[in-house]
């Protein structure tokens, strides 16, 4: 069995080659999605049918790490797929949609989606999705560690402390400074007051209650009653509700804003087309370059379930976080015993519970509640405690990463040929890591040829300037960019000169084929 240290090693390498199953009945979107995912260096399998997707998953659930699926598909409701995948395979599922209506987001949340992305999807959003997988798998591993390490508290503490530090370094910015938690994140021993950790399960109960009562009309007292969770107070619910409402409001506003901007822009454009007016391009007005806008762009276009989750509930990773200071025996955030949950399950609550209850197996796993002295539960590894929550901080963290010039370098820090060989037997593996860095470049000179020096310069890849076809000194451009009809008619055959191009160049050639074929 893996030690905690080894676990973190795996995390470092992990995102590269992550196996994604992409599902969308729209062939245009699917093709784009596939390419975007490849750019993120994931391994991609695509299908245009939810039914096929299910079959693929059932055939071998260990074949994939994550599923991304459109919600509007003819042969099966995307939400249904989501539910089934969650239930049967317990894989993280990300929803995709062109619907910006928050009610769809809610629906996705309730059906267990890890995330909800709006089309058109941007690559920045996909770069972070691997974290959903880490959280889920971390949780699973910790479950087994907890169960197995019941009696080895001493050892695990030691490892745990180290792991804790390492983990904190890695995820530090991910931790949200929620008012409820305050700055206690930084000091595990100074738990000032008992607080509620809104786990996915707990949050789902909250959601169900709110849904039942109606978002507008729901009141903390009634919600509390419906939730029927031991030791939860009205205050807890009230503050959670407040956050929830404000997040929902924000999302709705953004969605409306986006829709309005699009509508306004299109009207404007048609009117002013002949006048050649400027100022239209970027209806979202989001410069692609700066790190802070990643958060902006993401929040506009992708329902940051992280934000909804900032109250903790929705994602599995939250449940995986162990109470911080269980050792001091004081205000331990204690898991609720399971039987009451089953009772809840039996009540007329929506269907998410079965999915969640599987997460509740680990004894430490919480509906973390207040003021319960730790007694019957095993001493838990303090190192495994911190919050993994996706939340707004996730965006910030990814900003921090992205703004340091080299994307993902903090994520997969060993861009060496071995990793690629592990996933795809490619000799040109090294080149693969160059690719994303050079993909987007500053055009130094729009009119002149791109010299090799320019090609190799690594500029800030986040600047979203498109890269036209580039020329290498030793060959001509692949000249198969003919008319669309030409292209349709002659899709595959590559010209001789182009084949030569692949030889001594940056080795992009392997990129497509090897990732697609290797499984």
């Amino acid at each position, binding site marked *: 069995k893996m030690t905690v240290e080894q676990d973190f090693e795996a995390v470092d390498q992990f995102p590269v080659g992550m196996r994604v199953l992409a599902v969308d009945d729209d062939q245009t979107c699917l093709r784009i999605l596939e390419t975007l995912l490849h750019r993120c260096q994931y391994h991609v399998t695509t299908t245009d049918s939810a039914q096929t997707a299910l079959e693929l998953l059932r055939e071998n659930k260990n074949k994939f790490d994550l599923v991304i699926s459109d919600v509007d598909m003819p042969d099966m409701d995307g939400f249904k797929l989501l539910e089934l995948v969650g239930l049967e395979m317990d894989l993280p599922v990300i929803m995709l949609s062109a619907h910006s209506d928050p009610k769809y987001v809610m629906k996705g949340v309730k059906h267990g989606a890890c995330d909800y992305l709006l089309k058109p999807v941007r690559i920045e959003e996909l770069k972070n999705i691997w974290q959903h997988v880490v959280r889920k798998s971390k949780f699973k591993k910790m479950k087994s560690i907890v169960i197995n390490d019941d009696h080895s508290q001493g050892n695990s503490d030691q490892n745990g402390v180290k792991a804790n530090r390492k983990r904190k370094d890695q995820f530090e910015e991910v931790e949200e400074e929620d008012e409820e938690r305050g700055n206690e994140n930084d000091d595990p021993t100074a738990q000032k007051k008992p607080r509620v950790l809104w786990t996915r399960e707990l949050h789902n109960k909250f959601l169900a209650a709110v849904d039942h009562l109606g978002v507008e009309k729901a009141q903390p007292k009634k919600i509390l009653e419906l939730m029927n969770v031991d030791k939860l107070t009205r205050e807890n619910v009230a503050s959670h509700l407040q956050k929830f409402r404000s997040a929902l409001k924000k999302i709705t506003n953004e969605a409306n804003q986006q829709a309005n901007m699009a509508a306004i822009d299109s009207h404007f454009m048609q009117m002013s087309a002949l006048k050649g007016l400027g100022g*239209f391009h970027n209806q979202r007005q989001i410069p692609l370059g700066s790190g802070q806008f990643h958060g902006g762009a993401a929040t506009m276009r992708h329902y940051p379930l992280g934000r909804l989750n900032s109250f903790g509930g929705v994602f599995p990773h939250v449940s995986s976080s162990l109470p911080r200071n269980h050792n001091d025996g004081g205000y331990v955030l204690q898991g609720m015993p399971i039987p009451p949950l089953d009772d809840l399950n039996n009540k007329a609550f929506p269907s998410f519970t079965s999915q969640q209850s599987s997460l509740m197996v680990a004894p430490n796993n919480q509906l973390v509640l207040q003021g319960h002295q730790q007694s019957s539960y095993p001493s838990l590894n303090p190192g495994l405690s911190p919050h993994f929550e996706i939340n707004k901080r996730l965006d910030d963290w990814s900003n921090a990463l992205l703004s340091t010039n080299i994307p993902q370098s903090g994520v997969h820090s060993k861009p060496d040929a071995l990793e690629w060989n592990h996933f795809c037997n490619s000799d040109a593996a090294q080149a693969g890591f160059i690719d994303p860095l050079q993909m987007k470049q500053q055009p130094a000179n729009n009119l002149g040829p791109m010299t090799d020096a320019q090609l190799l310069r690594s500029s800030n890849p986040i600047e*979203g300037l498109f890269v*036209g076809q580039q020329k290498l000194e030793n060959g001509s451009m692949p000249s198969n960019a003919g*008319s669309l009809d030409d292209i349709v008619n002659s899709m595959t055959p590559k010209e001789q000169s182009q084949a030569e191009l692949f030889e001594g160049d940056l080795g992009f050639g392997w990129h497509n084929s090897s990732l697609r074929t290797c499984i």
Partner: protein
Amino acid sequence: MDAHVAQLQMQYRNYILSLYQQGFLDDQFTELKSLQDDGTPDFVAEVLSLFFDDCVKLVGNMARALDQTGTVDFSQVGANVHQLKGSSSSVGAKRVKGLCINFKELCEAKNYEGCVRCLQQVDIEYKTLKAKLQDMFNLEKQIVQAGGIVPQVDIN
């Protein structure tokens, strides 16, 4: 680098800029271009091909749905519009996407006349875009054949 190539490149740049300026394309198209590289030199063309195929199919579906002698199934029309909206937004076909947004509202309002008119507009719009992009690709081809490289165009 001879004058002919330079001239073609200039022409190309201006053409691209005008496509953006006139609202045919938006920054999503820019994103698409950025995904194309030496390893996938046909990427943009392939995706656009798929997109225009989709247009043909979806417009056909909508025309059929609207051509009912009995009651029109607006939700069916709406579903197709929704799909078109998704794909047009993904390729940066700004005008088409804009029309889809209006179209959706018309479907929800079950405005038959409005829908029919909007569908006609969609039809014209995607065909116009297709022709424009064809011209763009042709320019690229000419540049390359004249021994030049296709310039990156800075939209901003």
